[in-house]
């Protein structure tokens, strides 16, 4: 069986050969040990493969004598001229440069469309916008599954909640319009679903998203990451907060444990707050005393016993950070005073 298939429009090909998920045999069941063994064996095999740069979508398509028939991009353009013109500017148009898809880039995602070309019926062709999410994603993942951006995909909230790639990406558009990149546009797009998060940015103390100085993807990776909730990282495995707040990164000679173990969100509400400095409490002393409670460590928690003998009725002691100025960690003083 030769690959690539004939480029002649109208040649019959096996059903959806490029969508491997639909054509390969299912996995056998088994115990966890067998399962893990399979995974590692598979990993070893794939790592040992001498790969070539042939597109993934071509790996399993085989020429046959029966099955759906491709119409060719020219046929598509005859009716969908506006989409075709837009598509010509899209990075996805590059698929026409791949073996086997030279004359049918449209059908790479929409599937064989000869029947649709003949009947004009919408149900005779795939519309990824109207498919089940996993089927839509399967089309995209056929090419994009194994990309660097997909490494956190299986842990992503978007994946878990079945948000299709097409919810954010407009496939026929140019690189700039394929997905919102300018801060204002992107924030608007994210807000269309995460309206409750955008509402937090309307509070007086917030990161500068309203002003267009930042965008959601500065902190979050919508494709997923290993930190929750899909937070980006800096310096390999540190929270992305330190990308801009490098002076808080440390390591400090005297660490504030909460900063390392609860992350910044332990005290700050990064999306916005009515409290100065985006704190989660209205006064600093409550923020501190909730952990440094003087109650002790019998409960198994840490930080319960500071030397907190100050009279907090006195205005001098109403704000712990007046004295404990290095609350994120100190290079100099154990009590975080310098």
């Amino acid at each position, binding site marked *: 069986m030769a690959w690539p298939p004939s480029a002649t429009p109208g040649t019959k090909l096996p059903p959806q050969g490029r969508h491997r*998920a639909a054509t390969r045999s299912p996995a056998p069941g088994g115990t966890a040990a067998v399962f893990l063994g399979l995974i590692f064996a598979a990993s070893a095999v*794939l790592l040992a493969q001498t790969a070539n740069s042939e597109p993934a979508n071509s790996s399993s398509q085989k020429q046959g004598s029966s099955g759906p028939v491709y119409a060719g991009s020219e046929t598509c353009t005859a009716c969908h001229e506006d989409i075709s013109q837009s598509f010509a500017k899209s990075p996805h148009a590059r698929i026409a440069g791949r073996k086997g898809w030279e004359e049918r880039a449209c059908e790479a995602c929409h599937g064989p469309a000869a029947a649709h070309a003949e009947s004009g019926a919408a149900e005779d062709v795939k519309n990824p916008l109207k498919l*089940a999410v996993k089927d839509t994603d399967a089309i995209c993942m056929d090419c994009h599954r194994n990309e660097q951006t997909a490494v956190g995909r299986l842990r992503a909230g978007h994946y878990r909640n079945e948000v299709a790639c097409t919810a954010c990406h407009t496939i026929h558009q140019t690189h700039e319009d394929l997905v919102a990149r300018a801060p204002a546009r992107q924030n608007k797009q994210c807000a269309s679903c995460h309206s409750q998060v955008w*509402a937090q940015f309307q509070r007086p103390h917030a990161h500068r998203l309203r002003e267009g100085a930042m965008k959601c993807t500065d902190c979050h990776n919508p494709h997923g990451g290993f930190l929750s909730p899909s937070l980006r990282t800096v310096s390999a495995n540190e929270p992305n907060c330190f990308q801009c707040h490098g002076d808080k990164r440390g390591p400090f000679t005297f660490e504030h444990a909460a900063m390392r173990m609860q992350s910044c969100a332990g005290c700050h509400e990064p999306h916005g707050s009515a409290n100065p400095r985006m704190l989660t409490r209205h006064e600093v002393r409550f923020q501190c005393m909730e952990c440094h409670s003087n109650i002790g460590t019998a409960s198994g928690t840490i930080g319960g016993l500071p030397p907190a003998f100050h009279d*907090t009725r006195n205005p001098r002691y109403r704000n712990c950070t007046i004295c404990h*100025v290095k609350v994120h960690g100190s290079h100099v003083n154990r009590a975080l005073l310098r």
Partner: protein
Amino acid sequence: MTKLTRFGWVLILGSGLCLAQNEQASPADAKPEQQGAPVEAQAEAQDAAAAQPLVPSDEAAVAGTMELGYRWLGDVGGNFNAYRSVVDLGSGVRVLNLDTRLDDPSGKLWDRFTLRGGGWGGDPYNTAHLGVERHRVYRLHVDYRNLVYLNYLPSFANPTIDRGVFVNQRSMDVQRRFSDVQLDLMPGRMLTPYVAFTRDSGFGRGITGFVSDGNEYPVANDLRDQTNHYRGGVRLDGRGWNLTLEQGGTTFKDDQRVFNSAPNQGNRTQPLLGQQLFLRDLLQAYGVRGDSIYSRGLLAASPAAWIDLNAQFLFSQPSSDTNYFEAKTGQFVLLNQLLFYDRGTGTLSSSAKQPHSSAGFNVELRPHARIRIRESWFTDRMRNATRAQLVEQLALTGFTSALTDRLAVNFSQQQTELLVDVTKRLTMWGGHRYLWGDSQVRAPLVQRPNAFESAELRRHSGLAGARFRPWQKWMLNADAEIARGDRTYFRTGLLNYQKLNLRTRYDVTSSLSVSAVAAVMDNENPTPGVQYSFSSHDAGVSVSYLPKGGEKLSLLVDYNRTGIYSDIGFIAPFNGQVERSLYRDNAHTGSVLADVRPWKAGPWVTAGGSYFVSSGSRPTRYYQPIGRVALPLGKYAHWVGEWRWYGSAQPFYLFEGFRAHQFTTGLRLTR
């Protein structure tokens, strides 16, 4: 003229020239017609074909939008420092927005060139982004931001400032600059090397506190820090797998200085043991130098159609060395020795090292067309080992102390989920998550020196959810989690909690859609000595009305209602009685944006804004209405006029309220 301003003008002129040269753009060279060519020949030429410019040659070489204008800031009513802390937009000429695309007619240099930016000319948030790419040859990203961060809110530093006179001791007026450059070579090919450099720096002035026994003094603070990140790596794309290997490093320096050169009475107004404490001269000089190496390995693979897996290993080892010097004169006391002294010096040298490893593994199995099984595991281990030597000379008395510190945190998480497509329109899932970890940190000072305290984390969570799409126009998503634990690191940490998220969207017509979200969460820690209770709720509805795709009218309306309730006890340090820390926040947030454009090439009007009103522990009202008019001035230009108003008030801190009008007029050039 500052460098920034100069750069802003260069940006303006450059963009203007780009926009002006449209007329001279020559059509791209005709591409060889490939239709009908043999498949083999096309296959050989695929790289060349892919490298051709994607934009048809008859299009303009430059396209995009640029908005230039002048903004007037009316008299700011109320607290100007609060206005600057929250809004901080001033008067002057501005490049309000720039979003351009430049095409290379020859197709040899790039097939994508984009330049975006905004806020140039004096705004506190200047941004610029450059993206240039030639497919399969190179990809270059440059990102630059310059953000002013001013925070001067007396209510933060001294909540009772309206009842006493205390100088603000925690304020800052700093700039943070961020630059990021990344160059990928041969993107889209099997082997893609890349190099990148990022610099984050901050500098500015502020007020901070200097603490000495018995008194604390507001003093000047000179902030200056810089972090450089270097990284390089390679991405390998194989058939069914992708491997990324990266090696990087950082350098860090912090040269903060704290100083005072005039008599400073501090916050203590009464003598202590008959002596009036004061500060005359102070110098604190920090010299912190840090560096780090880090490594990253990422693997994504789908060795078979029924399995996806990815794995990552991340390691970093930041370290820092500090040389600190302090000198002070005035009148001070050492309370534990009842020693009064008039001058002192201190030097400290310290070092810290923090190896930090993380690893994760995720797999999805699809044993049946309707069944997916997801398994993920993640672990994160960090150690911080430090040592320091402090030498102090207080008048004639000298002290030398050797100090150590330690922080160790181990965290792991394992999660299993089963997803079943019950029907074509209904997917349900359930699963289990287990988190565990342990930590060891330095004990508080009241315990014996060099003692440590430990805590553990143990929590099981049940996961469930569903996605229901009864028909094309309606989608409903539900996600629930119930957790039970017996150990947590902190009193306010998650322990026994349940949360539920609902999200739905209904497309009433092709132009009208309604979506709603609701989320509730409760967290309880009944452990004696903790007794923490937390609950939050969040509900919102959004309406989007875009008849004919929003060509003539678009209307976006959002309303959100949130509530937070938190209750935990602590022992008041002054009388030993249990007090409660109660936090309440009941908020309403709304926004409306209507865009009306009666004729296709005619003027358009935008009106709307947002409001935030809350009650509870810190009641707040914050309004931001906006009105905007755009009138066409020929084919490529519009005159734009805009009015904004900012109004903020917090009844408990009325002295921090402000009101401000802004008017902007300018040109919007579009091509």
